[in-house]
Each structure stands twice: as structure tokens, then as C-alpha cells.
């Protein structure tokens, strides 16, 4: 099977280029296996990967124009030659390895932990099954970055717009019955950039390998702002 892979080594002084590889395939082969086969052919090739089963979120890449998690992408579904590039809009460190610093900074900015006004109890803070259900579709995010790096608003303003991943996480804490900092969280999201750069383009929903829906979460945040305002 034919692959065209983005190659860039800043130390070589060469410009980025696409390199062709021919790979022996096997039944059930995932894109990550193909990248490993390329690595076996050419050890100068660099990409990130770890768990191999869609849990760690390390091997997000751009395949034939769409962001995908390599380890859960069967190559049988891909059109030849398979074009593999690094995430769009991110500074390339080498080959498919990109600098995700801004992405993590945005996640950090939403303060992704439970905040309590009341003193923390000795035991766990209990939650009704209905309240727990509100976190479904939110807590599953593995932070692979497929969504944020496929979002045009994030391409345009990565330093100011939080991006779909951080906004999904922001809603995950706003929706949590145990969190007691809703007003601060909403105040933080105010302004034209952090939340309101989202124009519901929905690329995030299209590419999320876990089938999550950041656009819907963003809609919930806006709804909550509206409820608090009236």
C-alpha cells in the first residue's frame, strides 16, 4: 500500500517535503501499524505513539486531509496514496511530531479541577445518578488534539481562543454538580475570544475519535450564560 508522508528535520536545513513509502499490509492493520512499518524501513522517520488502542491520545495525525487518531484508523478505509501530515496549524518539531504547548496552555487556563467553596468533606462528595449522567460525553476526552487543531477559529487565534477541547472540558466542570465555581468559570469565558470565536463550524465534531461533541458543549455554556443573565 502506498503512503506519502510529510518529512521535516529542522536540523538538516532542508525544506519540508513529502516522501513515498510502500508498505506490506495485513488484515486489520491500523494506520499506526503502517507508521511503525515505515519507521522500520526508515529509522529517521519520527512520530508519537504509545498505547495503540485510542486511550492515550498520542498519535493524532492528519490523514488525507482529516485529523485522525492513527491507532484506531483502519487503513482499509483510506484512499491510496495515503497522505499523512502533522496536525495543521501547529509548529512542526520533526516529521509528524508537533508542538502542542498552546493546546495544553488553553486546557490549563480553564482550571480543570473541581472547585469547592464549602470545606472539602472527609468522604467523597456524593452525586445522584442523574447528575453523574450529565458528565457522559464530556469526561471521555483523551486530549489527543484532533478537534482543536482542525478548528479554523483555533488556527486563526490559538493564543486567545480556547479551542473545542478546552471548551468541552470547561463545560465538563460547569456541568458537574460537585463544582461550586460556576460564576467564576462563566466570567472567565466572557469576552470576544475565549469562547465566542466559535462559529459552530463543527469540524471538531467531525473529527473527534471518541465521538464527542464539543459544539454541543459550547452551546450548553452559552445557554447557561443566558440563564444567568436573565
Amino acid at each position, binding site marked *: 500500500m502506498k503512503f506519502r508522508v510529510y518529512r521535516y528535520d529542522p536540523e538538516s536545513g532542508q525544506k519540508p517535503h513529502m516522501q513515498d513509502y510502500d508498505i506490506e499490509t495485513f488484515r486489520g492493520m491500523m494506520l499506526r501499524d503502517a507508521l511503525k512499518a515505515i519507521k522500520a524501513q526508515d529509522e529517521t522517520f519520527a512520530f508519537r505513539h504509545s498505547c495503540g488502542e485510542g486511550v492515550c491520545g498520542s498519535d493524532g495525525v492528519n490523514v488525507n486531509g482529516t485529523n485522525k487518531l492513527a491507532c484506531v484508523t483502519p487503513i482499509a478505509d483510506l484512499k491510496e496514496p495515503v497522505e499523512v501530515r502533522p496536525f495543521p496549524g501547529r509548529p512542526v518539531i520533526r516529521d509528524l511530531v508537533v508542538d502542542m504547548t498552546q493546546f495544553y496552555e488553553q486546557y490549563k487556563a480553564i482550571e480543570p479541577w473541581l472547585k469547592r467553596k464549602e470545606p472539602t468533606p472527609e468522604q467523597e462528595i456524593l452525586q445522584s445518578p442523574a447528575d453523574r449522567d450529565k458528565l457522559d460525553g464530556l469526561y471521555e476526552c483523551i486530549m489527543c488534539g484532533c478537534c482543536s487543531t482542525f478548528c479554523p*477559529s483555533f488556527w*486563526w*487565534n490559538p493564543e486567545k481562543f480556547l479551542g473545542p477541547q478546552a471548551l468541552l472540558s470547561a463545560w465538563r466542570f460547569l456541568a458537574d454538580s460537585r463544582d461550586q465555581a460556576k*460564576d467564576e468559570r*462563566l*466570567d472567565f*469565558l*466572557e*469576552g*470576544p*475570544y*475565549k*469562547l*465566542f*470565536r466559535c*462559529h459552530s463550524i463543527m469540524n471538531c465534531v467531525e473529527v473527534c475519535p471518541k465521538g464527542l461533541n464539543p459544539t454541543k458543549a459550547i452551546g450548553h455554556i*452559552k445557554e447557561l*450564560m*443566558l440563564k*444567568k*443573565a436573565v
Partner: protein
Amino acid sequence: MSRQASGFRAWVYQRITAVLLLLFFVYLLSTLSFAPPADFVAWVEWLSQPLVRIGLLIFVGALLLHSWVGVRDAIIDYVHPLGLRITALTLLALWLIGTGLWVLTILG
């Protein structure tokens, strides 16, 4: 709860004006397709009805506000150098205000 005009309120204005624009567009399209004013005198007569006048004023106000939020969004997305952005936003504001005043002189 303090929400500034720049983010949340701009979004709310955009949504509300969108509904107003839709309602008036439906009225305008149906009037102009089923009972269009035949000549200049009929146009003046149509426009002199108080309800049409008020509706039109609200429509133009909503249109200007909606344009401000929408084009401002596009400028924030694409125009990054600060000087250029301020120039673009100022030109947009002047153009929208000018359009509003022009409509007022026509209807006034």
C-alpha cells in the same frame, strides 16, 4: 453577573436581530411578490403607513446591529495587525452609521 458587550451580549444581539430580520424578510417578500406597489405614488403610500414605517425602522436597526456583530467577528478572525484592525472596525462603524442616517433621511 457582569457580562460585557464584547462577547456574550454581542452573541445575544446577533441571535435576536436574526429573528427580527427573518420575520421582516418574510413580510417583505410576501408583500412584494403578492401585492407589489405599481408606481412611485403607490410606493410612497405603502411606506407612509405607520406599521410599515416602524417595521422598516426596526428592520434597518436590526440589520445594522447584525452586520456590526458579524463583520466585526470576521475582522477579529482574519485581521490581526492592531492598526489595520482598528482602521477596518472604524470604517465599518462609520459605514453602518452612515447607512443608518441615510435610511432615516429617506423615511424622515
